[in-house]
């Protein structure tokens, strides 16, 4: 087999057919909501994908090395990530502070105007 060209920006040692597949997060991203879907009477049950996605988020949230797993779609979601929630709180606090500073500025400008 010829050697596989490999981008230096590749994060997974994925090779179709190889034993070492991509990181779990990358795999989940690809298998969860993609692929041929059969609908109809011959289907016993496609695993409930919504429920599956939920469970995956639980799984990922429970893994310390989540970030090393590569993908961070759950990290931007405040309901799933304490870091995102912290950042959101910080943003809100910053907004409040900026608003009050702006009001103070407007007040002082108003006072400085010659009457």
């Amino acid at each position, binding site marked *: 087999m010829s050697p*596989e*060209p*490999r*981008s*230096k*920006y*590749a*994060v*997974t040692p*994925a*090779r*179709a*057919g*190889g*034993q070492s*597949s*991509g990181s*779990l997060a*990358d*795999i*989940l*991203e*690809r*298998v*969860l*909501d*993609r*692929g*041929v*879907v*059969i*609908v*109809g*009477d*011959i*289907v*016993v*049950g*496609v*695993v*409930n*994908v919504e*429920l*599956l996605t939920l*469970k*995956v988020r*639980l*799984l990922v949230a*429970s893994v310390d090395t989540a970030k090393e797993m*590569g*993908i*961070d*779609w759950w990290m*931007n*979601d405040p309901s799933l990530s304490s870091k995102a929630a912290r950042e959101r709180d910080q943003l809100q606090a910053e907004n409040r502070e900026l608003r009050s*500073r702006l009001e103070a*500025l407007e007040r*002082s*400008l108003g006072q400085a105007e010659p009457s």
Partner: protein
Amino acid sequence: MTPERALYVYAAVPGDAALDALRGVGDEPVGVLSADGLGLVVSEVTTADLAAVTDESADPRLVGDLAQRHDLVVRAVAASAGATLPFRIGTVVTDRQAAYRFLGSRAAALRSGLTHVAGCDEWGVTVREGGAGQADPDDTPTAESGTAYLMRRRQHFQRLEQRRRAALELVAQTEAALGELAADTVPGRGQQGLLLDRAYLVRRDEQSRFVAALDRCGDRLAADGFVLRVTGPWPPYSFTVADLEVTADE
């Protein structure tokens, strides 16, 4: 009533596809059901075992195991069978008759889907902000005048705007360079905070050029503080035909 034993479907392949010995979900042997020049890669499954994966009280790691096993089989199939159309994780049909009925009734769609992905792999490509260059203005000196403060905010937003334009241009260049070498491309799931998120279908004989283009684009992006991230080659998960409905009377 749900039958206890059923068939888990991994992928559609050409009918003459030969597989190496392979163990699928539940460690069951994987085989190919062939008809009309098409094949379905399947293994037997106990439906209760599969249903348990999404049970509220079940260990979420079961999902991870299922996904990894699914991917492993699809990957192995793609390596030995050539053209491969992966199925959605957790697809289970009642029995062999149902599988043959599906193959027979949807032969045309499956064939055109297989032709589309034949000889190709999928690559996942994202670009995100590198983290630097976004810094907010430093802490406000308390004695700063209102005008100075507003000036500083304006400069900050001007810098952000310049950065946004630079990102747009670089991403457009990247999309153009990669798109030219790809057989097809589709958007990714649209994660927040990504400047680019696409899957590319690339012919294996274009793979070296595609990888070279990835590296060139990655270097150019990195020079401006953006981060290119590549996964692949994958089986063509993102390039499968849409839902294939089968009704009772077929």
